[in-house]
């Protein structure tokens, strides 16, 4: 189909993402925290960015609380650094949409909930993982030096940054799920276009299923 071919061609490959970081510490940060349900009463994702982590950032009087997303020094960050089981809970794609619209282009963490990672991939946001020690080192670096430029390299599975008096370069090993890596690097993360080209095979599979009428 010409339509889907055009779509497939327009999907960019995402080999690496560079930008400053923002650390959000804590395990089991669920999607209800990333975007509270009351902000989901919308029919488009536009405008969700300002509600990212809303209840962590504002109290009942809408006064600001301590949260990295409120700190001026992290306002331009595009790499989120988190701990374990990030994005657990509800499957709402509103969560990565809110983070993306706030400005996040890549997430580095100890581990991610599966549906969340899948939703991120569908938006072209890499979710790369590293062990607890590495993450903690990265979070501390970003906290102490918020202007540190991080490069999340999906292809080589590393995070690199330069820091210190002699701009010494540090490279950390991270892991990227193989399917995610291929999809991002080859620019084939738009699965609608990919799958639509297999229309005949879809029909054949359906025809072989006894329950499909």
């Amino acid at each position, binding site marked *: 189909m010409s*339509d889907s071919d055009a*779509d497939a061609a327009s999907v960019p490959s995402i080999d690496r993402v560079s930008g400053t970081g923002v650390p959000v510490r*804590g*395990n*089991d940060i*669920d999607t*209800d*925290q990333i975007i*509270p*349900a*009351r902000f*989901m*009463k*919308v*029919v*488009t*994702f536009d405008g969700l960015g300002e509600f990212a982590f809303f*209840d962590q950032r504002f109290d*009942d009087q809408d006064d600001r609380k301590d949260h990295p997303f409120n700190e001026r020094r992290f306002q331009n960050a595009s790499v989120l650094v988190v701990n*374990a*089981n990030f994005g*657990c*809970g*509800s*499957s*709402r*794609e509103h969560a*990565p*949409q809110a983070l993306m619209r706030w400005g996040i282009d890549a997430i580095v963490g100890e*581990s991610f*909930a*599966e*549906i969340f990672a*899948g*939703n991120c991939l*569908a*938006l072209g946001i890499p979710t790369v993982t590293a062990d607890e020690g590495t993450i903690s080192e990265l979070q501390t670096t970003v906290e102490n030096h918020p202007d540190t430029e991080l490069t999340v390299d999906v292809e080589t599975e590393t995070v690199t940054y330069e820091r210190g008096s002699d701009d010494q370069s540090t490279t950390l090993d991270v892991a990227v*799920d*193989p*399917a995610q890596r*291929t*999809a991002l690097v*080859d620019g*084939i*993360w738009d*699965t*609608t276009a*990919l*799958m*639509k080209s*297999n229309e005949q*095979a*879809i029909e*054949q*599979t*359906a025809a072989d*299923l*006894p*329950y*499909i009428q």
Partner: protein
Amino acid sequence: MSRGTLYDKVWDRHTVTTLPNGQDQLFVGLHLIHEVTSPQAFGMLRERDIEVARPDLTHATVDHIVPTADQSRPLGDDAAEEMMSELEQNVKAAGIEFDDPTTGNQGIVHVIGPEQGLTQPGMTIVCGDSHTSTHGAFGALAFGIGTSQIRDVLATQSIAMDKQRVRQIRVTGELSEHVGAKDIILTIIRELGTDGGVGHVYEYAGEAIESLGMEGRMSICNMSIEGGARAGYVNPDETTYEWLRDTEAFADDPERFEELRPYWESIKSDDDAEYDDVVEIDGSAIEPCVTWGTTPGQVAGVTEPIPDPTELPEAKRETARRAQEHMRVEPGETMNGYEIDVAFLGSCTNARLSDLRTAASFLEGRTVHPDVRAMVVPGSQRVKAAAEAEGLDAVFTDAGFDWRDAGCSMCLGMNEDQLDGDEACASSSNRNFVGRQGSKDGRTVLMSPVMVVAAAVTGEVTDVRTLPEVTVA
């Protein structure tokens, strides 16, 4: 790698092809949609000028935002009304069947699928909702998906997925009195952790599972996702077939039932199936369970002490400490006696007819504590009607429960049913995250339906086994 399991067989039967990114393209047998996660997907489809591929395999309901007190249109909440009309327009344009509240078939998406016989063994089922795992109770492979994947399914009736590992969880022995499906799944999550199932599909087996009815199996599969597993299933058996036979899918078409039965039998896990791992849990040792924290894995038996964070594995300490601060509980205490303000009997975990029956039979002859706001929200309009036909509504309202219309309600507080301030809620739902029930200071204690009733009656978390018997006149 697993071999010969239901998961392997259903996966193979539905594999269209392997995609260049290494994922498999799976055909989707049933796509369920609702108002919260579908509008954006329909929007994306319109942008690309793509039509819905298989409206005949798509089924819609409205559940998250519907009010449970007054469903007349336009809905009182403008944002809710907008979502509802958007869904109406989308399904109408695409020719998708829609159980709107005027049909008598509306309800929570994971309640209506099974009760209408849409959910069948050996199917692949997806929905933009993480509790789609519920449908696994019938031996289907059922996954929650995000909005971009909904777009995929609308456009191609298929989904791109990585194959996962299969863990069999065998729950052995006989359950004690007042211990049920909810206590089993809370115990499993407690044992294996909220992320223990990541990368896995759970196959639930063993006598304690097999002895459950379909509704109990659904409660268990429902909360697979709380354990990190995207899907959970039970192999189909006579209990499954009994249920299906009575649904409209087969009641008038027994031939179709016989036609499909060999397929259902064929996709069951083989006796010598290989699993990536097997976990065994002693069902006879499970007591009524409650959560003490703010993740569904922070669980204790009702008479068991709340753990001391310093004695937990390091990764869990900080979360536990913060959870205890939020819940205002101390290590060493038990949850028994924890004061509650609200009792919520509802959600896709525990608002089916058998849940309401069990709760009502225990409630009969008792009354709700004067300081407790108690509500029952049936899982669907059919559940509601069936319960009313049996007089269960009278049992609830006589005791002081509010009897409401079907929807998700206070499970996630997207309609007007919400906790207020720091209210504590005894809840039969599935998530106790901070803010989940509509108030960020609200405190949720998850438990089984009968434990919700016990808490409603005494005004505090109560070991249901210790309540004195009542004689019903």
